[in-house]
């Protein structure tokens, strides 16, 4: 019996010929990631481990300041400094301070720190993003990250895999975000708990790298341990532009065992929206817009949709127009590089002229940290990945999730709007 893509990568990193779902292995890691929140706790744990003075490899750790940056208060500044001092002390090569990085999951691929076949663990649940590149990547808590800092290995339970096959060409204004919202809605928020999602089908073969990033990013929203794509020429070209490191492209065997196979027909799919208060409360937009749903805030950004491709879609819709007067629109480019590219292409000017505020790169409003926190009774439509109660601030606020196009269309009208109807509503 063959192995899935996840099983192959895990077996190789555990030094085994094969692994089976359920088996517990010790696997070597190629990269360990932390942000200032998870690092602060992990560093504390590491200081308590007897005999652990140094990290296992100062070139295989990435530390990114993104959650509360630029520091929102003295307590946040303390955490950022703690991580920065640690990076200095341990001579960590990949440390990204404000102005040189952005959101961790946007930065790592940009910097060539992620390649096919690698095993990456991170102190952030959206570490699963790197599955877009054919890597095994999963999020963990700070104690696990401290152990990985020190040992360069982690214990893992080999997950069973769910194969999802996407076929059909997406229709007008249907993007990777819509396809993934549909997937989370289909599986449910615990539908893939302890499992790997393996993405297949002609639709995803045709997707851009950014589209695959958006989809791998939200594997955790179905509870998955990891979500993984097969690397192809597009992946290899992207990675080779950014690193000289050797990597191994692996493929699932033809006779690999999947726990389940799910088929999703993309051709018939409308833009999708996740309604409050769970990311699996997903509906086709025509159902949602049956009612008029006014919003107070639109947020464009995050590790799901804070990429240049996303900002181009938003700018195209907002170009030469003004956002609805009763609304604020907050845009956080995902990284310094995305910000610069958007500046060069004139996107930032288009957005600002339309009435949006463009923030510094970082997580910003995504997790209710700062720079766009929602108040009681407010409603937001957002390009982010989660809409749990209190996710973006007040537990009495409501968050809807949609694609950058759906969010941009809603920014023009002030109500949740199907981007396919923009011409018809005359904005």
């Amino acid at each position, binding site marked *: 019996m063959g192995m899935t893509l996840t099983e192959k990568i895990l077996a190789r990193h555990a030094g085994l010929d094969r692994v089976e779902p359920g088996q517990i292995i010790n696997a070597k890691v190629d990269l360990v990631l932390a942000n200032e929140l998870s690092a602060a706790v992990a560093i504390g744990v590491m200081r308590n481990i007897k*005999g*652990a003075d140094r990290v296992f490899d100062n070139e295989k750790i990435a530390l990114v300041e993104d959650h509360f940056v630029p520091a929102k208060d003295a307590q946040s500044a303390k955490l950022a400094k703690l991580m920065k001092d640690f990076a200095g002390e341990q001579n960590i090569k990949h440390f990204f301070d404000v102005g040189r990085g952005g959101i961790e999951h946007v930065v790592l691929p940009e910097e060539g720190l992620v390649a096919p076949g690698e095993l990456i663990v991170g102190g952030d*649940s959206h570490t699963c993003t790197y599955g877009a590149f054919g890597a095994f990547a999963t999020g*963990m*808590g700070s*104690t696990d990250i401290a152990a990985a800092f020190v040992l360069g290995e982690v214990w893992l339970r080999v997950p069973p895999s769910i194969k999802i096959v996407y076929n059909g060409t997406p229709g007008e204004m249907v993007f990777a975000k819509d396809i993934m919202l549909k997937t989370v809605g289909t599986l449910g*928020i615990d539908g893939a708990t302890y499992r790997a999602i393996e993405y297949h089908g002609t639709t995803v073969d045709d997707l851009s790298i950014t589209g695959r990033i958006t989809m791998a990013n939200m594997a955790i929203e179905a509870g998955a341990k990891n979500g993984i794509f097969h690397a192809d020429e597009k992946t290899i070209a992207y990675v080779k532009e950014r690193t000289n490191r050797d990597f191994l492209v692996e493929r699932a065997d033809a006779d690999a065992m999947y726990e389940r196979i799910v088929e999703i027909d993309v051709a018939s799919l409308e833009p999708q929206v996740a309604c409050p208060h769970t990311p699996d409360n997903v509906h086709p937009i025509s159902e949602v817009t049956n009612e008029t749903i006014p919003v107070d805030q639109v947020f464009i950004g995050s590790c799901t949709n804070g990429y240049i491709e996303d900002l181009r879609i938003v700018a195209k819709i907002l170009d030469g127009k003004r956002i609805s007067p009763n609304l604020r629109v907050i845009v956080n480019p995902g990284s310094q590089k995305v910000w610069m590219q958007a500046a060069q292409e004139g996107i930032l000017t288009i957005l600002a002229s339309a009435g949006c505020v463009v923030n510094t790169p970082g997580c910003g409003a995504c997790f209710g940290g700062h720079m766009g926190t929602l108040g009681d009774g407010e409603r937001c439509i957002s390009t982010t990945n989660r809409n749990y109660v209190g*996710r973006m*601030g007040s*537990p009495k606020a409501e968050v809807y999730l949609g694609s950058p196009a759906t969010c941009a269309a809603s920014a023009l009208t002030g109500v949740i709007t199907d981007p396919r109807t923009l011409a018809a509503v005359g904005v």
Partner: protein
Amino acid sequence: MRGNAHKYGKNVDTDVIIPGKYCNIIDAAELGKHALEGLDAEYTSRMKTGDIIVADTNFGCGSSREVAPIAIKGSGTSAVIAKSFARIFYRNALNIGLPIFEAPEAVDGIESGDEIEIDPPSGTIRNLTKGTSYKSAAFPPFMQSLIEAGGLQPYVEKRLAERAKV
């Protein structure tokens, strides 16, 4: 361990266990003051030290924030019993020493306010109010050995010592 049950539904996520705005706090007692704030703002004022959280499926879904189980522990809650746990929360709870028990039948047989007694080694959960008794799912052997060793930290120390010998 013994305490009164506080019962909640399914998919209790990390954003309601400890909202994002508190994630820059490290101190367990301080975090504990905000445990479950997004779900039940009165939890910390109502609960007594030793009380037990009882919940349906997928407890702890969402982010990887280790401050979620730390906040629960910091509040004085002695354990969480749920029908199932989200993956990262499960690891984090074991690693930081928050006792968790997967016991679907116990959850169905417990109401808020019931007095509960748990015997961790055997996984026996007794509902003293109703006079019923349940068994929680056993941990896989590797995780049982982690728990017995006292969490992940001693395990890492052991691995480091083994390496030093070679």
